[in-house]
């Protein structure tokens, strides 16, 4: 398992796309911090990159990588190796190298310009989102044998989480405007890792506005130990469940 992990990591780190992704993140974060006269505004632009670009790149790159290494996987399966360990080392290899790319690209500039709670939350959230979307990509690819179908599904999943889900929530809010929606909103947010990450950052970034009545409900929940535990467990579940299900599927899959 260690050997496969090592192989996957070196293979990805040599990949030009990951290099470009890292350089892009680095250039984007350095320029947002350099161009804006106050660095909290730079943080805001970076938030959009983390919430949109990072999931997109991770989910598409991971699905393409898995489809491209189909032959390599077949070769490994023919060896006396457990299927589960092959699949898990693929996942950990992808997750580790893409998280590293994110950390170098966005984490280091944040640490230089904003070494505070907001900065640390942002880095943690970005790394968690990277891993989550690798996991979701594994789930999308294991279900579809056809490359076009699998990558299409990955893009649709990304679109759903970053755009459609919020539209749906907004629609719900307008429909149930007469009811107290604060607590259901917290539950709903757990169904979208991007939303959950955004709220965690929002509570630090817009703390003054969040101290209003509704915000206070969120702040009271997410600001407490239970709330933080809830969000971290939810985000971890978003990693564990897809990986576990995909591994289970891969175990019984006819290659």
């Amino acid at each position: 398992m260690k050997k496969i992990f090592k192989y996957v990591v070196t293979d990805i780190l040599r990949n030009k796309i990951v290099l470009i992704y890292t350089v892009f993140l680095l250039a984007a974060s350095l320029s947002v911090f350099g161009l804006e006269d106050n660095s909290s505004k730079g943080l805001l632009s970076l938030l959009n990159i983390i919430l949109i670009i990072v999931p997109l790149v991770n989910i598409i790159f991971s699905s393409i990588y898995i489809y491209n290494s189909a032959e390599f996987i077949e070769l490994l399966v023919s060896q006396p190796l457990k299927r589960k360990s092959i699949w898990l080392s693929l996942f950990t290899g992808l997750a580790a190298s893409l998280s590293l790319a994110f950390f170098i690209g966005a984490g280091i500039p944040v640490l230089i310009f904003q070494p505070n709670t907001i900065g640390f939350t942002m880095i943690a959230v970005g790394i968690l989102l990277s891993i989550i979307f690798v996991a979701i990509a594994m789930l999308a690819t294991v279900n579809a044998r056809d490359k076009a179908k699998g990558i299409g599904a990955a893009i649709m999943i990304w679109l759903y989480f970053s755009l459609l889900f919020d539209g749906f929530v907004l629609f719900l809010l307008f429909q149930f405007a007469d009811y107290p929606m604060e607590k259901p909103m917290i539950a709903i947010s757990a169904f979208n890792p991007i939303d959950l990450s955004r709220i965690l950052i929002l509570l630090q970034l817009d703390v003054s506005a969040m101290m209003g009545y509704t915000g206070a409900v969120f702040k009271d929940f997410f600001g407490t130990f239970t709330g933080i535990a809830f969000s971290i467990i939810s985000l971890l579940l978003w990693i564990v469940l897809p990986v576990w299900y995909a591994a289970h599927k891969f175990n019984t899959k006819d290659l």
Partner: protein
Amino acid sequence: MGGYAEMKIIFFILSMFYYCTCIAKTIPVGSSRKYKTITAGIEASVAGDTVLVDAGNYKEKNLVIKKSIVLKGINYPVLDGEKKYEIISVKADAVVIDGFRIVHSGISSLQDLSGIKVYDSRDAVIKNNILENTFFGIYIQNGLNCTIENNRLTASSTEEQQSGNGIHCWKSDSLRIINNKITGHRDGIYFEFVKNSIIWRNTSAQNIRYGLHFMFSNNDMYVSNIFTNNGSGVSVMFSNKIRMFSNYFEENWGDASHGILLKEISDGDMEGNYFAKNTSAIYMEGANRIFMKHNTFENNGWALKIQASCMEVVLERNNFIGNTFDVGTNGSLVLNKFKNNYWDKYEGYDLNKDKIGDIPYRPVSMYSMIVEKYPPAMILFRSFITSLLDKTEKILPSLTPENLKDNAPLMKKAF
């Protein structure tokens, strides 16, 4: 011999003068002095005397001062109200109270028991005192030309009913309230029917309700005060011609909390104030003819909540930096004017390089209107879809008020 009688009368009159002007004596009070209690010291004094109190602990129940004397403490002698009494009641003109530590007044909403209360008098000076756990701290009732200076007021009650105001002024004229520090009271400074007064360089922090509370008080001015972390910020209501210069309003957090609440205010003038980290920095309702210039709004939830009931409010050359929402409103009617402000969210351009943006800035974002109507929508703030909605609204305004805009926004900070 008639001349001798006249001489006698003249001599007598002259001696009266001598008595009045020069025998203003100092009466020491203390455990090792002739007068052991302040009450005895005051009894022995006449108008113009100084009662000088040594350090120590004095339980004098209610000290009533009915003569124009100076009551001065050395090294902060403690006056203890034993949680039953009003500690000092001033019922004469030109009384000076200087340098006492006044602790534990009684609590009574019926009588408004205070640490120091001035009744219907003029020219009182209350300075350099420390008040701890008093119900009302310093209370001026129907006073004229009084000075409250360099006092420290601290209370530790947590309920509004169990707590009075720090400096409470009612139906007074020409007061000077300078360099006091007030914490833990119900309202830090309270003004009701007070005219022509100045509040200068005070710090009012962590009070249960308001840092400063104005009602029906006209022609007052407050300058260089700091209002931090009060239950509901500062509230100025039903008053005319208030001038507010160079004050700090910080960290007033909560839905019903504002940096400053302006309700039914006319002809006000606000310049050089600094608002930071408030849920809403300014909340205006029924405010007329307010002129706001050179104010800084930084990192607030809402920099300005201006209700449609406001008229002729002018905002000129203010800085809006890092606020979540710049302006929020509740209707489409706009009778106010925004001009030459700096908005950090402005995305326009300046082709002729006159440092004024060529296209107007609309400080009301669509999302602030949505949040005003559906507060839980705050949870979707800064998501992709809401920024998309905001961008669409900027191009085709439908929900936001058409006339609420700054036609000449500045490209760089106003100051």
